[in-house]
């Protein structure tokens, strides 16, 4: 089996695919990439199905040495990616030759970087998935990856030189707007608290991880009605006894007993994945029909990107053009 080697694993790098959503009734967390959009785009750029396994790197990315020809794509947080020492762009397919080194150790803004490999990562599936759930070791690579790890890949090539529109990419903001709709226990909270929630600015706490993102801000304390544990949707906003919001993310437990005042709309979940401790957000209530409209607009854009890629003819030859300390990837095509 072909593989790549992590000559530096980065701070927290794991393997993620579409996860185990369908096993949540067994108490097994869904897992999967935190930034579902970035992981999906990375897979599209290298011609993969959307459930192919990718690398998710947190805080600092890995340094990868390739022993084989393949195609990769980098998405998510903004990195100063380097291919054999030359700067290379994200959000486009990169043709890799055997012996290449891809250095993602410098993340400029955002938190999580995704790297997709044409053909996908080929580690053993456990419980129908290659996704890593950090608290538990399901399979050989279900852990934080280590320097020196060799990760099996199919190593297909996918020659294509399209890029992704900036509006689909991660964009840094000083204050992120996080749009929410009513959660399952919304009526547990008085209108005044729902108003307080959107009038305040919340700061991301240090105690955030793949299970949940915790916030610090105006306390939303209500007379706690005891609730009976129920299922937890991805992106739901739980209010703890201390009155602080926690947004439940990929590795959340499938069931829980804190009331869920709101759910972050599907479109804004990728934004949450890129929040660093100290980043600021503002919640905004919207309706489900608005959420659906935003979702459809996003899906249309993704469909267009897929169409462009599928309609492109395979180039005859791929070239690397080095200008200064940057490498540009391009191709020649017969008319």
């Amino acid at each position, binding site marked *: 089996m072909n593989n790549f080697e992590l000559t530096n694993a980065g701070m927290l790098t794991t393997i993620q695919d579409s996860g185990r959503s369908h096993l949540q009734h067994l*108490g*097994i967390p869904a897992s999967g990439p935190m930034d579902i959009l970035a992981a999906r785009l990375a897979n599209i750029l290298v011609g993969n199905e959307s459930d192919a396994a990718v690398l998710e790197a947190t805080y600092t990315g890995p340094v990868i040495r390739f022993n084989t020809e393949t195609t990769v794509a980098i998405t998510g947080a903004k990195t100063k990616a380097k291919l054999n020492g030359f700067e290379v762009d994200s959000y486009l397919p990169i043709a890799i030759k055997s012996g290449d080194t891809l250095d993602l150790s410098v993340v400029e803004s955002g938190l999580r970087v995704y790297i997709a490999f044409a053909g996908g990562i080929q580690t053993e599936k456990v419980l129908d998935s290659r996704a890593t759930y950090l608290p538990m070791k399901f399979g050989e690579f279900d852990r934080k990856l280590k320097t020196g790890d060799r990760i099996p890949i199919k190593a297909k090539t996918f020659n294509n030189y399209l890029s992704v529109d900036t509006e689909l990419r991660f964009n840094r903001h000083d204050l992120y707007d996080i749009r929410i709709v009513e959660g399952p226990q919304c009526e547990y909270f008085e209108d005044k608290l729902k108003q307080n929630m959107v009038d305040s600015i919340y700061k991301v706490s240090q105690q955030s991880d793949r299970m949940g993102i915790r916030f610090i801000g105006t306390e939303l304390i209500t007379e706690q009605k005891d609730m009976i544990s129920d*299922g937890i*949707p991805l992106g739901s906003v739980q209010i703890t006894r201390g009155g602080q919001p926690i947004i439940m993310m990929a590795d959340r437990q499938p069931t829980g007993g804190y009331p869920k005042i709101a759910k972050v709309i599907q479109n804004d979940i990728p934004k949450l994945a890129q929040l660093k401790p100290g980043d600021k957000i503002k919640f905004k209530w919207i309706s489900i029909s608005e959420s659906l409209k935003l979702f459809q607009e996003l899906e249309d854009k993704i469909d267009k990107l897929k169409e462009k890629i599928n309609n492109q003819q395979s180039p005859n030859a791929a070239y690397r053009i080095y200008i200064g300390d940057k490498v540009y990837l391009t191709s020649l095509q017969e008319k």
Partner: protein
Amino acid sequence: MKSVRVKRVDINYIVVEYEQIIDIEINKQVTCLTNNLRKLDREGVNSIIPTYCSVLIEYDPLVLEFENLLEYINEILNSNNEVESELGRTFNIPVLYGYEKGPDLLEVAKINNMSVEEVITIHTSEVYKVYMIGFNPGYPYLGGLDKRIATPRLDEPRVRVPAGSVAIGGEQTGIYSTDSPGGWRLIGHTPIPLFDPTSNEPVLLKAGDNVKFISIDEHEYKRIKEEIDKGKYSIDIVLENYHE
């Protein structure tokens, strides 16, 4: 159907809520809706999570429209088909009470002013209902602890409770399915794995099952453990009619 609320949560979830109480009859309705939805096997339904008195359904809005899914749910809710009679399973779970892996047994007896033997007799005489699976992989929420052996949780939770620990926390009893932190009082240990990620059936119990604890001695514990390690052990399951 009385007091059922169907709530849409964003564009990809629906939650069906029954009367919010912990009750066997309501939990049976939860199981019934879940089983019917699974039988339908609609494309676009990504996950169904049944809990004590609600069912959370996750769907892919690109494949399945809200209105269609709602129709399926309402059809099942209105079909008035009595909770389908299916075979209820009772698992006889062998437990070594006390010893190193049940360090709180004596304390539980003391707090409740009885002997260790009485605690074991009471704990093994109940049949416990599995209301739901959650919290951790394969973790069963059990109902039916005899109040005489209810014991407050530890003031300081343990950092690591080993999988298989049988415990009492307040008015609940349970079995830790995986190694995890926990504040319940550990009264014994079962060699039976409740969760095995490499197995075809990774989780032993499911919602609607029954559990009965059987007290075993150290010899028996060792024997069962060896059989499990060799892949030879088969757990004692009693099948009975759901309606009994």
